[in-house]
């Protein structure tokens, strides 16, 4: 048993710390050279808007039992996972239609989210229907799924 303590165990922490610093440098270097990938979310949110807004004009989204998937030809579970469709009545109306992740409304309103890739990409605006104004937010945070097989 070596009671003098030659420091090999402490050396391991130093070694791992150096590896970690090297790894961070390599990852950041590769990312800055090859880029962070194709950010499709704002395009997808725009495509979704071009489907949802005309559909909103043609259908009553606030009717009980309304199914946006059936009415607007969107796959059933698609909006539940990484998207938000929110339509809120303005000018005193309290009618709200929400499908998807409700918190994206707050994340879309947060100005610090523009530079952060973890936040969803959003499209918002107003629309009028039968003389009533509505505010809408359509957001996407879908990331591509990468599978690695051994």
């Amino acid at each position: 048993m070596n009671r003098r303590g030659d420091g090999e165990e402490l050396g391991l922490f130093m070694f791992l710390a150096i590896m970690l610093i090297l790894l961070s440098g390599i990852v950041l270097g590769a990312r800055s050279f090859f880029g962070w990938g194709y950010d499709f979310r704002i395009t997808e949110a725009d495509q979704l808007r071009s489907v949802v807004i005309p559909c909103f004009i043609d259908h009553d989204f606030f009717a009980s039992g309304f199914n946006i998937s059936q009415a607007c030809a969107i796959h059933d579970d698609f909006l539940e996972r990484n998207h938000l469709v929110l339509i809120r009545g303005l000018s005193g109306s309290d009618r709200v239609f929400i499908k998807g992740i409700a918190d994206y409304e707050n994340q879309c309103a947060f100005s610090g989210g523009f530079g952060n890739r973890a936040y969803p990409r959003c499209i918002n605006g107003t629309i009028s229907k039968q003389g009533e104004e509505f505010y809408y937010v359509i957001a996407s945070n879908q990331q591509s799924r990468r599978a690695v097989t051994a």
Partner: protein
Amino acid sequence: MKKKGGAGSNIGMWYFAYIVLGVLFFSLTFFWVSSYARGAALYEDFFAKEIVRVINTGTPGQEVYMDMTEATKIGFKNGLAPADIVRFNNELHMVTVRLSQRSSTSYAYFNRVSIRGDSGVEILSGSADTNRLHFFITDVGGLK
């Protein structure tokens, strides 16, 4: 002098451990960076999203041809057959692009349609360097 001998053998063991960890670290890093350098990861991501972009705006009855030459160059170099490069999953409404034996990238489309892509990536006759993806957009259930 048993104590000193013990310490010496320990040093040898630690050197061995450092070398193994170092080799493991650098080989994993090499494979990760080389997957980017070959372009497989980037083109999988890009083409999965571009195919989804076309499907999202498509209507049943449309037939789509899409140039996939850049992607197929990488896929063929990695030993993939044309039929393995793009897969459509109508149950999960998802497009999967595979350009290497070990990885693939998937992306979901929202448009309520089915995709019939039996022919997959076609190698055009008379043009060895040009390949295109061919698929049909149909009603859910594939009636139209």
